[in-house]
């Protein structure tokens, strides 16, 4: 009987992280990138909760931090969507490769 341990949670987190990173690196759509970012954040949340469960003490620091991350992610998403809307209104598209006005 396979016992679900820390390692499994970490593997899930790695998978999530890699998927998010891959999404960020490959998507040209800003919304897609935003989804990738959410995945990466969620992998971090999973890590926090997992480490708190298996290595943490009685204080539940990791889980509380995870809650903060979720809130942070929500806020970040709101800002990011706002940026996306502005990019769209300026450029008529949300293709991030087109938003390269600040290139060197």
């Amino acid at each position, binding site marked *: 009987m396979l016992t679900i341990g820390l390692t499994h949670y970490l593997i899930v987190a790695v998978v999530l992280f890699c998927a998010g*990173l891959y999404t960020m*690196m490959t998507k040209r759509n800003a919304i897609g990138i935003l989804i990738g970012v959410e995945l990466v954040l969620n992998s971090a949340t999973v890590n926090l909760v997992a480490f708190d469960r298996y290595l943490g003490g009685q204080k539940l620091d990791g889980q509380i931090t995870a809650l903060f991350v979720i809130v942070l992610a929500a806020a970040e998403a709101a800002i990011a969507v706002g940026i996306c809307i502005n990019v769209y209104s300026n450029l008529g598209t949300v293709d991030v*490769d087109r938003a*390269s*006005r*600040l*290139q060197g």
Partner: protein
Amino acid sequence: MTGHTYEICLALGVLSPMIGFWLLVFGGRVLGKPGAGWFALVTGMGVPLVLATYVLLCWLRVDDATRAALTENAARFHWATIGGVSIDIGIKLDSLTIAMFFMVTFIAFWIFFFSIGYMSGHSDEVDGKRKYWRFFAYLSLFAFSMLGLVVSSNLLFLFIFWELVGLCSYLLIGFYFHEPTPQYAQIKAFVTNRVGDFGFLIGMMLVFFHLKTLDLDQAAVVFGEQYAAGSGIFASGFTMFGWSLATILGIGLFCGAMGKSAQFPLHVWLPDAMAGPTPVSALIHAATMVAAGVYLVARVFRLMTPEALMFVAAIGCITLTLMALIALVQVDIKKCLAYSTLSQLGYMIFGMGCGAWVAALFHLVTHAFFKAMLFLGSGQVIEGCHHVQDMRRMGGLRKKMPVTCWTFFIGVLAISGAGIAGVKVGGAGIGLGGFFSKDEILAVAYVRSHEWTSYERVEEGHGGGHGSDEHASAVKVGASRVILASDPAHGDSGHGSTAHGASAHGGSHATGKAAIFENTPPLPKWMFYLALATAYITPFYMMRAWWMTFMGKPRDQHVYDHAHETPMMYIPLAVLAGGTAFASYFVFRDLFAHAAPDATDAAMVLAIDGTTHTPAMSAAHSYLVYAVGGSFVAGFALAIGIYGRGLDVAEKIKRTAGPLHTLLEKKYFIDELYHLVWIKGCLVVATVARFFDTWVLDLAYNLLGSATERFAVFIGRFVDVHGVDGIVNGISKTSLDVSDVVRSPQTGRIRSYVMFAAMVAAVVILILVFKPEPSHRLLIPSVASLGG
């Protein structure tokens, strides 16, 4: 009057013309043609005259002790401290100041009055600008300066006002500055005065440096103390031309007087100054400013050593003789009066040099009255004859201008010393002006030159020490006084002895009178004889001028037909004629005699005046009075004899004495000599300097400039372009290159940024994981340990 009322009155009298001056400067245009003149008459001279009269009357009523106290307690205000020497501003309150103040205000008032009449007939436009008011503004400024000079208690302030009157003289001589003659004359006057003022400054510096004070009274006290102790300026071994430093001090101060009072050899400016308007000639160049030199000598009399006084006497003697001779041949009425003024100033200076302090100042005042009147008379004549000044074209004017004629005649009598010798009415001799004053100078000169050795000293028993002298009224030095042994009583045989006022002041001052008998040499006899001979010349040239102008037949019918006189101009003449008579008898000589003991007591000065004078005169007068007092008869007779029947006799004499006449007419060629020596000399020096400038200095500068230019071009072409610019450009180019390299990763593509970030994070993690450092394992646990 009590307290400081005297000073306040005098100070207000000084300030009133200055306020008038500023008001005229800014508001004269508004006041208009006659208005500005009347305004100046009131503020410039009316107010001071009222105050001066008030002060004079009050002063005459107080006794000697009160006067001494007032002099002692006169207010002084601290003005500045220079090099440890405190300089106070204050009023010198004594009889001399008050007499001079009244004299100046009185004469100036009537000259202001005359000026209004004079200027009404003159064009007041210069360069298209009306400047009538400017004339009165200048006159007011002069009044302020002259009165300030008179009341100054401090040598420095005296000098400041001294220069101010010089400035006014300059401005007024050149009033008609659009003509060349006044321009040259004003510059000549100013420059010549600077020569004298140079000496004045040297004297003042010596006073400042050695006596450590600039206050007139203190300086005299210190001078006397230093003489008694042989310290200070008397300890200096410095000599020049055989003069000690103390003598140079006196001569230096006298140099200022030589310039202002136009003494030989600095006399050249005064005749030329007659180019100014006639009231100016009367006020500044006859009555007041030129007398300032004599006044200065009187004020610094106590700083004069016997050698210095001998120098003063010699200069005065030379001046009075030479100038009187020139006056003989002048045909310009104003020039004739100018040379007469020079000669009379010579008398005053000569009197000062002899020690005839009172007589010289007395002569100053009487001369101021009659010479102002004579000049105003000449102004009336010139004005009436439409600017004809040549006496050869006048003649017979007595019918056209009777008041001018007879007031002028009074002036002629006064300057000639006319009087009746030996006759007295009501205790006073009968005579005018010079009859008393000039005669007194000659009497003193006679005593100094002939009877000097018959004086004997009367020891007062004070020894030489200044500490033991308890007489507060006099300078505290010295011990002896001089009286004439043969006539100890105050004799009355002289014709003017009542006016000489000896008895009024008794012995109270005589006890402190100091004189060092053996240090004062007798006067050379030639000086006395020259002065005596000139007393015969004076009546001749004055009568000649008067006769040529007013008597005889008209020589130029055109001039004669137009001649006229106006009340505005002859009223002052009449008043001054009265003033001449007044000044001759009353008040002034007494005041000077009163001021004399304090002003002339000094360690080494022998002053024969005041109390000690009258006995001296008595002996000399018994026959001198006929020699001097009769001179005017001889002079008048000769003049009428020559000029009585026109100019024919004079022409004959002129032809006979050809070279001599030319010498006099050309004023001994002194102007030409100065032109040759000073002006040409200056030009030669200037030419040499210019040559040096062009060929040495300019050459060096040009070479230096050229070298600098070439060096600058080199710097600009090479160092600047390749060095400085190269560095700056190189830095900017490098910055561009670096920035090109640096910005190449900044693609603007967010996906590549994410990839960079991920790769960098991966690399960092890999390093941390595989680096075999124990410490790092503690921070970041290995995967293996996590699995546990």
